[in-house]
């Protein structure tokens, strides 16, 4: 590793810490000022949380801009216009800590299912609470609540893995996303997220920055139909299993192709370049 590489790496460790500090401080600051005010700005709970969601989306855009400006990452979005329509059911794989930051920054109004642990996180509980996001701990009512949100024309976002991907382990989806699609009678909007070199993944501390500046590709796919799975006359639990299996197969292929392309396109020297750091 040469001198400039070391300096760059040290810079990225510092700048990552700085960015995350800004994120945490921003979340607490906005969590006690702008977001609650917006939440109280209308007696209609839905109108109010939609306003908060738009404000959260703007703050996420600022955060992505900050990380990009500090030289911490580059990214590209493919098919972003497909996220514009309302009432979408977005499902995405979840390789890194900031996947949701990207997706929320692209979608002004979206309900997110958030794992219960984040409601106890001292920084994340504020956006999560004021934006009216849905906890995954609500149990029996969760599927119905999500289907109702979609029926109202709201968009919904779920990471079916339930937590970040563990690199090297097979992709595993919980069945909630499929259950929601079947209950709501909706197609899914798959979003494939890849990051190379991988960083901010499960079990990796934020300060362990990758050897090179990481690049994210966020690709919005075409609708993934769910109707056929119930049409076969299967009981819903079985249909949910089959839909989940089909989704996992789809994402497996999509992630592998996307990563493969990134690795050949982004390396200097192109297709034949070899990377000895991996």
């Amino acid at each position, binding site marked *: 590793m040469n001198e400039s590489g070391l300096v760059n790496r040290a810079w990225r460790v510092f700048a990552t810490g700085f960015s995350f500090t800004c994120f945490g401080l921003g979340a607490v600051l906005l969590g006690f000022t702008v977001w609650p005010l917006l939440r109280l700005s209308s007696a209609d709970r839905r109108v109010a949380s939609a306003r908060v969601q738009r404000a959260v989306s703007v703050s996420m855009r600022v955060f992505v801009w900050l990380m990009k400006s500090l030289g911490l990452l580059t990214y590209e979005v493919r098919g972003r216009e497909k996220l514009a329509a309302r009432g979408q059911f977005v499902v995405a794989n979840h390789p890194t800590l900031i996947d949701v930051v990207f997706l929320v920054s692209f979608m002004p109004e979206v309900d997110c299912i958030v794992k219960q642990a984040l409601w106890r996180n001292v920084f994340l509980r504020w956006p999560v609470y004021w934006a009216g996001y849905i906890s995954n701990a609500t149990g*029996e009512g969760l599927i119905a609540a999500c289907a109702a949100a979609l029926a109202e024309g709201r968009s919904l976002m779920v990471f079916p893995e339930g937590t970040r991907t563990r690199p090297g382990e097979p992709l595993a989806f*919980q069945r909630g996303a499929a259950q929601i699609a079947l209950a709501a009678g909706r197609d899914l909007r798959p979003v494939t997220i890849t990051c190379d070199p991988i960083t901010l993944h499960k079990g990796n501390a934020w300060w362990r920055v990758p050897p090179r500046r990481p690049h994210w590709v966020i690709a919005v796919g075409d609708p993934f139909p769910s109707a056929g799975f119930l049409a076969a006359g299967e009981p819903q639990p079985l249909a949910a299993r089959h839909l989940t299996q089909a989704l996992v197969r789809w994402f497996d292929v999509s992630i592998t192709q996307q990563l493969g392309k990134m690795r050949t396109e982004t390396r200097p020297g192109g297709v034949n370049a070899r990377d000895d750091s991996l």
Partner: protein
Amino acid sequence: MGPVQSTQEIFEQLRGVLHELFEIDPAQVTLDAHLYNDLEIDSIDTIDLILRLKELTGRKIQPDQFRHVRTVGDAVNAIHALIQNKPAAA
């Protein structure tokens, strides 16, 4: 299910239901198989399972009665207890 079923018969029927609803290989369904860890029956599945058991037994089932069920054996015992008792007043 008739009123005089043995736990063995209940076990066999439960096996059938688990296969019908969740495509679980009957060979995997043993009395000490854990519903969540071994058979991957999640909380949403449990609701569907209880609905199906309601149909089969013709008894009202409160989710409470299944709260402590962890294994297939627990489920068999819970269903057995349910059938032994008179139908709950509607």
